[in-house]
């Protein structure tokens, strides 16, 4: 299943990854190789099979959380990890619409 450069670029944009032209080529080849291997799944008979998205205990998740407000993180601590902030909010560069 060859995957061309345009597809690689599209996927990279969806994933917000900047790729150099060299990377685009390299990833296209490597992904194609992996996808070729994955093609074998197309031959499996999955008629009537329910997808297994949750492999955990049927009793997991209960009881649900009670609606009680709890402690928050201090803002200083939160912003201390931020690459850019103004003491109140995270700052990000402008969005070009």
């Amino acid at each position, binding site marked *: 299943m060859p*995957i061309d450069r345009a*597809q*690689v670029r599209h*996927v*990279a944009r*969806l*994933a*917000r*990854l*900047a*790729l150099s032209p060299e*990377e685009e080529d390299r*990833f296209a080849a*490597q*992904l194609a*190789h*992996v*996808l070729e*291997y*994955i093609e*074998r*799944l*197309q031959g*499996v008979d*999955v008629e009537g*099979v*329910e*997808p*297994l*998205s*949750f*492999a*955990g*205990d049927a*009793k*997991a*998740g*209960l009881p649900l*959380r009670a609606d009680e407000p709890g402690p928050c*993180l201090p803002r200083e*601590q*939160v912003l*201390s*990890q*931020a*690459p*850019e902030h103004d003491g109140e909010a*995270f700052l*990000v*560069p*402008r*969005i*070009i619409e």
Partner: protein
Amino acid sequence: MKADLLPLSGISDALAAGEVSPEALLEASLERIRALDARLRAFLRLTEAEARTAAKASSQRRKSKKPLGPLDGVPVGLKDIFCMEGVETTCGSKILRGYVPPYDATVVRKLKQAGAVIVGKLNMDEFAMGSSTENSAFGPTMNPWDLSRTPGGSSGGSAAAVAARMVAGALGTDTGGSIRQPAAMVGCAGMKPTYGRVSRFGAIAFASSLDQVGPLAQDVRGVAYLLSAIAGHDPNDQTSSPRPVPDYAATLDKSVRGLRIGVPAEYFGEGLAPEVEKAVRAGVDKLRAQGCEIREISLPNSPHAIATYYIVATAEASSNLARYDGVRYGHRAKANQLLEMYEKTRAEGFGAEVKRRIMLGTYALSAGYYDAYYLRAQKVRALIRRDFDQAFAAVDAVLSPTSPTTAFRLGEKMDDPLAMYLNDVYTVPANLAGLPGISVPAGFDSKSLPIGLQLIGKPFEEETLLRIARAAEPAAQRAPPIVEGR
């Protein structure tokens, strides 16, 4: 100091007998790290100050014979995937270099509550993606048995640190084999519990439906102690199970006579190194000699496991790693506008393997491909689970090699991602099916490289699994030559 060369349970006994103090153990640990880690590079950072405080407190408790449990005073290491409040946690990635979490992972909190002495954070493949620890942004870790080889991955640092006797035990995570495979590569025990047995809260996510936190130690009893300390329901993780946690060490020595062990034909075929097969079959004989019934079984959908895994895991990972966008924490690239910031930040912050997997996962979920890839993979996953359910009607555990080969050379598989993925062929099925699995040492090959034997058990029956593992593990544990200074 002899005690520090003992396996975890031996160290625990020595502490209980007052033969050694937590402080002395910590010193021995730090000493060995100083002696060996420049070459092994298992540790990313040490938490010496916290460890000293913990050792001192533990010492008081041990002196007054009021220990918190078998782990009180035992030096342990944590894969750098676990959030530890106030301590840099990178997940092996540049994108989190300098990131300091404001909270402890639940398992970290539990280890602290058990009195364990946390010595430092251990190296790993970036975001747990890899089978050799070569994908760490901070350089690889070496295999203590042969410095030109990898210790496996992604919990390579954890495995190397235990095997090199730098710590008595460690925590890792296992998504497709990342505890079991490195344990096999370095000759220690490593376990992935049943999905939901241990909380994932605070363990940085790779693939949410596959990730599990698990213990590594030289001996199965040590693994049992660690598992007892970290297992249990966590209201912060709604995928965790509310089932009560038994004392996993309590039934370890019970006889395994009459237990039925399934040996799947599909796991002993092409690609398996002959010496590995020989050692694993010897392990089968050892269990047979102790009264286990050995049965040939079939897990017919095994050949599809790797393909299934690399769709499901990468799809979930592509979503889990979207939060690394430079907005609130971690690396941010210089850029004048937002889109550029996102794309450059992630390009600069992520390594090649992470980018590859994000791309693959995004592709598998994207419009037009979801049904053919992700949905189909989740259906094949159900079939793989069904194979095990059917097998477990007739056997109590499934036995196989942990890895098709022993430790490979650094750089050997870096050019071919698919070749690297195929290392996981025996380990990924347990993750896909949510089953507990453990690797125990099963001898060495002609190059003196360790071989691992894997056991897979029924959901939430870790007790039985550990019992069989205990019966299979070697009586004495040889330390790698480097430990003795050779």
